């Protein structure tokens, strides 16, 4: 393991909190960045109290995007061991989204990620890692969430490209294609399945990062499910209520 902290962007996300807890349990120090400083501070307090690590909270607003704020925290210290991008939003409902919703959804899920990761890259240890939380929604556009899906597809492609660029001489990039997770994001979705437990998801992500996987489905069953969905001919797919 490289020294240095792991920075988590979107630290108040359900999945991010579970990931942060797994890392903290191993004694890993953390930089927890979120759009609400009081809430990010509570996450930091929790992890340092439970696991005795140093956890610092930091404001991060993708609208600015504030990665210089994050960089500033790193000055004088060792490079980051890793960066996790956990930010994502499904705010634009398909068919009803106005220009602002669309701009917001594509920017928060994709543009802001690129801006932040590119900006932070120089601060990441060459033997470190970058994790991008993407989605199975990006693998085949569906009527319910294709704006979000398209932005996540772009994020996945960005991660692949970055992985290619850095291969052998920079941090490893892992794109995580998440299936349904029982989180803040999915709780309010009518009729949705309850999804995988965040703790299990976090463990699977860490395993994939350690194994140096460029792309991974979490939970793993989503690999074959999405393969099948991608292969379905259009006339069949279009009749599906998915």
């Amino acid at each position, binding site marked *: 393991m490289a020294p240095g902290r792991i920075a988590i962007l979107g630290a*108040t996300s*359900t999945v991010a909190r579970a990931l942060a807890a797994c890392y903290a349990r191993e004694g890993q120090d953390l930089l927890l960045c979120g759009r*609400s400083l009081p809430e990010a501070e*509570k996450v930091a307090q*929790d992890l340092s109290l439970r696991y005795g690590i140093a956890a610092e909270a930091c404001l991060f607003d993708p609208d600015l995007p504030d990665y210089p704020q994050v960089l500033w925290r790193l000055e004088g210290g060792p490079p980051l061991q890793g960066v996790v991008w956990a930010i994502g939003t499904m705010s634009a409902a398909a068919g009803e989204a106005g220009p602002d919703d669309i701009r917001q959804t594509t920017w928060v899920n994709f543009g802001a990620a690129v801006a932040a990761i590119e900006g932070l890259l120089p601060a990441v240890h060459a033997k470190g890692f970058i994790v991008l939380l993407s989605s199975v929604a990006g693998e085949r556009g569906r009527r319910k969430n294709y704006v979000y899906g398209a932005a996540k597809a772009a994020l996945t492609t960005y991660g692949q490209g970055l992985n290619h660029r850095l291969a052998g001489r920079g941090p490893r990039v892992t794109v995580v294609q998440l299936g349904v997770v029982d989180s*803040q994001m999915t*709780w*309010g979705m*009518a009729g949705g399945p309850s999804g995988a437990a965040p703790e299990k998801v976090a463990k699977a992500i860490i395993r994939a990062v350690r194994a140096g996987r460029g792309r991974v489905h979490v939970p793993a069953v989503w690999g074959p499910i999405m393969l099948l969905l991608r292969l379905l001919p259009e006339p069949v797919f279009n009749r599906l209520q998915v």
Partner: protein
Amino acid sequence: MHEAGRTLEIAGWGHAMRRRAEVLRPEQQSRLSEALEGFGIARGLGRAYGDAALSEGRVWQTTRLTRMLSLTPEGVLTAEAGVSLGDIVRTFLPRGWTLPVTPGTQWVTLGGAVASDVHGKNHHAAGTFGQHVKELVLLTAEGQLRRISPEHQSEIFWATVGGMGLTGVIVEVTIQLAPAETGYLSVDYVRSGGLEETLEWFSGHDRRYPYTVAWIDGLKEGQGLGRAVLMGGRVTASRELGAGEARYPMPRGAVRVPFDFPPGSLSLPVGRAFNAVYYGMHKPRENVREPWWKFFYPLDVADEWFRLYGRRGFAQYQGVYPPEIGLGEIRALLRRIHAAHHANFLGVLKRMGPPSPGLLSFPREGLTLALDLPVQGEGTLRLFRDLYAMTADYGGRVYLAKDAFLTREMFRRMYPNWEAFMAVKAKVDPRGMFRSLLSERIGLGEVR
């Protein structure tokens, strides 16, 4: 921003009462405030037996508000209300701190423990959970976060401690933890042959121990009626441990009871056999060393054991009676239960200490008796009505966290402080935002 909920059927722990509700499960305090609309009730881990955490409206579930915020060198812990007691023990016992008071299951939240002002095996020595709370952060109907304590806004504080969620949603709890020399208890087991002997033990012998309880055989009739296994425990001193023995042991995972057993799996013969075996198993012994989870949480070895009672579920009777109530009255209660032919597993009997200042807090000085009973239709209703009437006649009361049958009139007889409580509620929740099926049933919803 609008917080989205999920419509779910939820139940009390006895699973005899169920209701569809819009459940919100915020993971951040700011989201909880945004979710405060309409009317409803807070809910923790749903360990209340009846309908205390059920509502026709919204349910604000705290199970993801689980951040621990600080621990002072003196052992004062501040944590979010959704943190479970089990989580606290696992986190802080290795540092020498434990819960000052704990109920018979570790899977309750801090918020739930305060709202029911729970008691434990050390009630006679340590009082209720709420008596160790130093401060609460309460989200009230107008969306304000209030810091309340025994010193500051004490009226609201003592209406909230034991207040069954009816003053608002508890968001943070600050509590004085107790030092723990080890994670073991040294337990004396005494067997009593009948009720007289059982009560004799509680007339003084129990004072020798910080932790006491009797597991009473609720099905034994005749001579052995009220026979019990009496337990007195104290925290084991570290010098009593062997060299190389872990000072703070930790359990492994729980066994699941995987599906709904058919109704009646817990029949009378099974119940009798179980009680007899349990009684027979516990030979009188002294100074038996047990790890904390076996002593405090014997029922937690199987999660979801309520499933043993099948689809119709079960209910618990728990009453507490004034100090002058004893042999005759307890015997009468047990006989009434026998007459109803309801199976039951292990009743609990204990002598409680002085009451807490919580206006609706259950414990008071005297004996308390608790028994789980399967719900078998009309007969069960009649049984509970009778037990409640007897309890009220004795000058006692039943525990709201266990209740499913109390009427408004009976509640007012048992809880003479109800008017004082309603006066505080009228101030903090004038429009009656916080309402549960329990509060509607016992007339605590009607704010004027």
